[in-house]
């Protein structure tokens, strides 16, 4: 996978890292609150069949300019600006978790521009009887069990190539990275990941695939039905034995669902 960079006029100082891999039809991937994994297995699987273009949100990786993005509208318009600059041909827009929330907002705002949408365990809705877990108060060691059905596998994927948590210098870098990433994510997800998307989902006209890990412990799979009923041309696929990071945990199954649907 290779990175290229886009510079945007607004917000000032915005530079977007875009990871690219694979050949085929264009597919845009918008990551979740955790960013990309090292050698992300989901991106790798998608790249076997598609030309994957994965911009990183400011605050993530080498993308900058997060101070100028404060709310959902800022982020949705930023993402549409990035999409425009990428000059893709009728891409499938795939978003995971927070990225799914952003992709859904983009498709609701610019419904004439986004025709193919894939929401992988998207955030953005809230049900009092099935509350989404508060990721912001979780400690790092709790995350693999929350994000993966197979917590041990998740642990391996999440720590791969990331150094040693006992090393104070590494720990400081980790805290800075975490503060940047989740600090940015908090503008969309804290304290409750609802910025009014339910009022706008009806505007989505894209053909929409919704994918959920059947064992999602962060955003329960019941949210899938809510997205399914609110978006007219949509289908819901549940992947067994998979958690919230369904794309990383069962990349082949999610790839197959995308291939079958589009």
């Amino acid at each position, binding site marked *: 996978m290779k990175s290229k960079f886009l510079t945007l006029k607004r917000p000032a100082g915005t530079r977007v890292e875009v990871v690219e891999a694979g050949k085929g039809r264009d597919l845009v991937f918008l990551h979740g609150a955790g960013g990309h994994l090292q050698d992300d297995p989901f991106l790798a699987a998608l790249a076997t069949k598609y030309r994957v273009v994965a911009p990183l949100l400011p605050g993530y990786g080498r993308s900058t300019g*997060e101070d100028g993005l404060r709310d959902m509208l800022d982020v949705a318009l930023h993402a549409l600006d990035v999409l425009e600059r990428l000059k893709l041909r009728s891409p499938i827009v795939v978003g995971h978790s927070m990225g799914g929330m952003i992709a859904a907002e983009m498709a609701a705002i610019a419904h004439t521009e986004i025709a193919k949408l894939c929401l992988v365990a998207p955030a953005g809705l809230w049900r009092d009887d099935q509350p989404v877990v508060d990721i912001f*108060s979780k400690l790092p060691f709790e995350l693999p069990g929350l994000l993966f059905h197979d917590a041990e596998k998740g642990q391996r994927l999440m720590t791969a190539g990331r150094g040693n948590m006992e090393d104070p210098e590494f720990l400081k870098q980790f805290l800075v990275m975490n503060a940047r990433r*989740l600090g*940015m994510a908090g503008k969309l997800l804290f304290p409750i990941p609802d910025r009014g998307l339910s009022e706008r989902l009806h505007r989505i006209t894209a053909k929409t695939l919704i994918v959920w890990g059947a064992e999602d412990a962060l955003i329960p799979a019941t949210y899938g039905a809510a997205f399914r009923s609110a978006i007219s041309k949509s289908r819901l696929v549940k992947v067994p034995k998979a958690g919230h990071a369904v794309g990383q945990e069962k990349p082949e199954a999610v790839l197959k669902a995308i291939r079958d649907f589009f």
Partner: protein
Amino acid sequence: MKFTWFHLMPWPHMPDDFRQKHRSVWVDLPSKMYEPELGHIAYHQYLDQLEYAERVGFDGIGVNEHHANAYGLMPSPNIMAATLTRRTSKAALVVLGNSIALYNPPVRVAEEMAMLDVLSGGRLVAGFPVGTSMDTNYAYGTVPALTREKYAEAHDLIRKAWAADEPFAFNGRYTKLRYVNCWPKPVQNPPPIFIPGGGSVETYDFCIDNTYSYSYLSYSGYLRAKLLMEGYWKRIEERKVDPSPYRAGFAQVICVADTDAEAERLYGPHVNYFYNRCLHVYPGFADAPGYRTVKTIQTGALSQFTQAAARDYPNMTWKDLVDGRYIVAGSPETVRQQMEELIKTLRVGNVFCLLHVGNMPDDKVRHSTRLFAEKVMPHLRNLWPEYDNHDDRFWIHPMHEPVPTRIAAE
């Protein structure tokens, strides 16, 4: 030197197995633990103690703001300060402070603090904390990464509201008001302003730019505070402003008894209660991602509650706490020596004395307070003679002839 007797007002009835049964003293501990009728007793005892502190000669009496917790029971410090305006007449009312990013609109703070200053005849010290992450983010829902921008805007609005003589429009990002018109206005305009900080350079500069006093509130004592305060004084030097010690304050847990051994016997259990129950904060609530700036994290400074979570308080003995100077405890002479060292090494003109500790009963609070006031404080008064022991910029300016308050029966 200015000594402020500071009350945290903790819930004093947490059970012995609190640490085992609950992950946090803040944010998600069940409120069924709170018993209102016991709360009634605690509030009045605590307010009596603050009034007592004025009587024995403290320069200030202090309250603060916290939410959803058993560590400190003052969601509204202004209500507590309001009761004190009627029952005290000399002491500064140090409200440290109102978490200004939480008020909607923040003009509410300008109004209530003006009320307190008018009620007290110009005795308000106004504190503007960002608030802990537990309070500001988890209990009150402010988006962590936007907290500081919201704080800065609220600060500007409050200062303008106090300063303006005519209504004005305020078009902020977080607050939009067509008519800002602060009634009443404070007697002191503005009151002295204290900023609690935790080691970020941005906060040093904010205090220097606005002539505010920087207050470091820590429970790990003056030895560990030295590095942070040196950073502040270095910044003062770099910015070429005068190094008045009244530009800084420090909070310290203090226990005074007739002898060192007596101090351990009298206060040991209550100090243990404070460090092991009141400071038992779940690390996931101590520092929401985005709450502190990247620059501050890079300096390596941790919030006091992150520090508390990282320290091994359950296994620390009285001796560990005393020898490590987490607490200043012992005979009047021991306390005098250590307080002198604290004041000189940190270069502070303000000390926030925490003489009520954890679940300390009223008689012990008064005993420790009286010994400090009579046998320690007089010997510490003259530590900054070159400033004539006062800096007009950082202390209250009461009215010359306030109206005496009368009780209804008179």
